[in-house]
């Protein structure tokens, strides 16, 4: 059974090579200090939102009239809000909401935007239709469109995700389309056509993987942006509805008492800045890492 032996040998080659390639990837990622810092911030925030609720002792919804607007103390580490709720636990629960919104928006916008971008790049007629719709959406400032959509859909966390996804789909679609237009002209796509590959196969198995690196980078920026816009929506009262905490609506509540309870504004603000910074640094790093030109130099 010579063929069988060969196959087994091939499996060994595969596992060795994959290990090598993974190591090289990791080594190159860690060579980029800023990206590592970004990743550390993201991991910290994710851990905070997942493990935080298990550690904290206060109920984020539990009101205590006596403790209204209490300054940071040994009991309430970050102080309390105007209903006497513990700020630290609200920020931790808010992390779940804000990061969850960011993640969901990035994921939905990426998947839909990718499909839109790919099909627009492949079929000329679709291109005109889809891209004009995208232009229309992009013509409005993100926040304005989000407010309008929220007004139409009604206030709920799911609607925040839905409306922000709609806002950000064109941004992904644009990036994917322009990458796909370049890939579409490559000879390996023509080679697949010469084999008689179906359009579906060419679009999803051959063009799509080559648009992933700009897409992933764009998605990290959208993640960060979604957190900001969600905060802004909440700040304007059109975001995640009370009593659910999000960084944005904590900030909104703090606005009214900014001169008496600075902690209401400063701590959620720090969280927003930190998460945006983390994702931006990470996205920048990924862009360098996934750029085929830098890979070429490594050859």
């Amino acid at each position, binding site marked *: 059974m010579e*063929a069988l032996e*060969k*196959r087994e*040998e*091939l499996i060994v*080659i*595969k596992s060795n*090579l*994959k290990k090598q390639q993974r190591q090289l990837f990791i080594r190159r990622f860690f060579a980029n200090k800023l990206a590592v810092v970004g990743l550390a911030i993201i991991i910290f925030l994710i851990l905070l939102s997942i493990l935080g609720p298990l550690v904290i002792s206060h109920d984020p919804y539990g009101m205590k009239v006596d403790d209204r607007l209490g300054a940071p103390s040994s009991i309430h580490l970050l102080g309390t809000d105007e209903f006497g709720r513990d700020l630290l636990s609200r920020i931790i629960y808010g992390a779940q909401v804000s990061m969850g919104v960011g993640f969901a928006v990035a994921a939905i916008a990426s998947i839909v935007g990718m499909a839109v971008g790919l099909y627009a790049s492949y079929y000329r007629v679709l291109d005109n239709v889809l891209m004009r719709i995208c232009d229309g959406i992009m013509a409005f400032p993100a926040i304005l469109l989000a407010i309008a959509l929220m007004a139409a859909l009604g206030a709920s966390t799911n609607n925040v995700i839905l409306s922000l996804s709609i806002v950000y789909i064109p941004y992904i679609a644009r990036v994917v389309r322009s990458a796909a237009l370049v890939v579409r002209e*490559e*000879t*390996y796509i*023509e*080679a*697949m*056509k*010469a*084999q*008689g*590959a179906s359009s579906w*196969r060419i679009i999803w198995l*051959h063009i799509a*993987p*080559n648009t*992933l690196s700009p897409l992933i980078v764009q998605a990290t920026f959208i993640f960060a942006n979604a957190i900001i816009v969600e905060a802004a929506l909440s700040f304007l009262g059109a975001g995640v509805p009370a009593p659910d905490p999000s960084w944005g609506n904590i900030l909104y509540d703090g606005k009214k008492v900014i001169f008496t309870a600075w902690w209401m504004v400063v701590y959620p603000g720090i969280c927003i800045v930190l998460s945006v910074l983390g994702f931006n640094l990470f996205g920048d790093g990924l862009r360098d890492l996934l750029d*085929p030109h830098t*890979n*070429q130099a490594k*050859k």
Partner: protein
Amino acid sequence: MLMQVDKKHNTIQPIIEPSKPLLEVNGLKKHFSVRNPLGRLEATVKAVNNVSFQLHEGQTYGLVGESGCGKSTTGRTLLRLIEPTEGEAIFQGRDIFKLRKDEFQKIRQDMQMVFQDPYSSLNPRKRIGHTLEEPLKIHGIGKKSERVDLVMDILEKVGLRMEHFYRYPHEFSGGQRQRIGLARALIVNPKLVICDEPVSALDVSIQSQIINLLRRLQEELKLTYLFIAHDISVVRHISDRIGVMYLGQMVEDAPTDSLISNPLHPYTQALLSAVPIAKPNFQRERIILKGEIPSPMNPPSGCIFHTRCPKAMKICKTDFPIIKEVAPDHFVGCHLY
């Protein structure tokens, strides 16, 4: 046996019964419309205009010409990567231009293509093994494990090793990539391979490796090649028969030795005399053509070559020369003959 008198050499030669052509191209035309931004038709580019030739089983037909002569377009229309405007291509008794898409799909397995640029012809995000497996998947050949076996076989055949299965294209040199491109074409066991400038992007020492490989595989697998290239010395080496194209038309079509030793069309003569020869002080009469190739949007009337032809006559400006058999099996489209 049929006999024929060769008047030139004054000998009697047996007529070799030509093998049945594998592919017969008749009157192939591809015209592109050039439209202005408002969608009005501005001009028609006759990229390929009335080209006919035959490919015989197990042989190599070389298609030469300078950039813009339509040789690559010809190759691509045969695979219907570009739909032809007119003409027929008889492959195994059927006109492949008339087939429906799903009928043609079966033919694609028999007609494969090798591309010029070894860098852009491989998907940078796919491991070599997967790139080679893809044609098998598309044509529904074999189970997963059988496909892996076939990929390993073909890697060996083109001079690569099993270790290369999981590598990415950027880890290979230009010559190795061209071997991979060849493997992708050969893995589905085709009858005809269209080679579009397969060695022109390679270094001299690598070029000869690939040419030898192409020839060895042709013998082993009984392949028929349509070899498209601009380098005449390469085409001469590998081809049994050569067709010369100029501005979308076939100007001369003859067996290799006959064409090289006795070029009849003035363009072929100029082309051959322009090839640099690696012998210092090599004495020959060099025909330097004046001017540039005219724009295919606005081709000259009469004979398309008359604007640059050193032997142009009055009739060339007005009348289109019909392709004639001037010497045995040697076809030329020129008013001189």
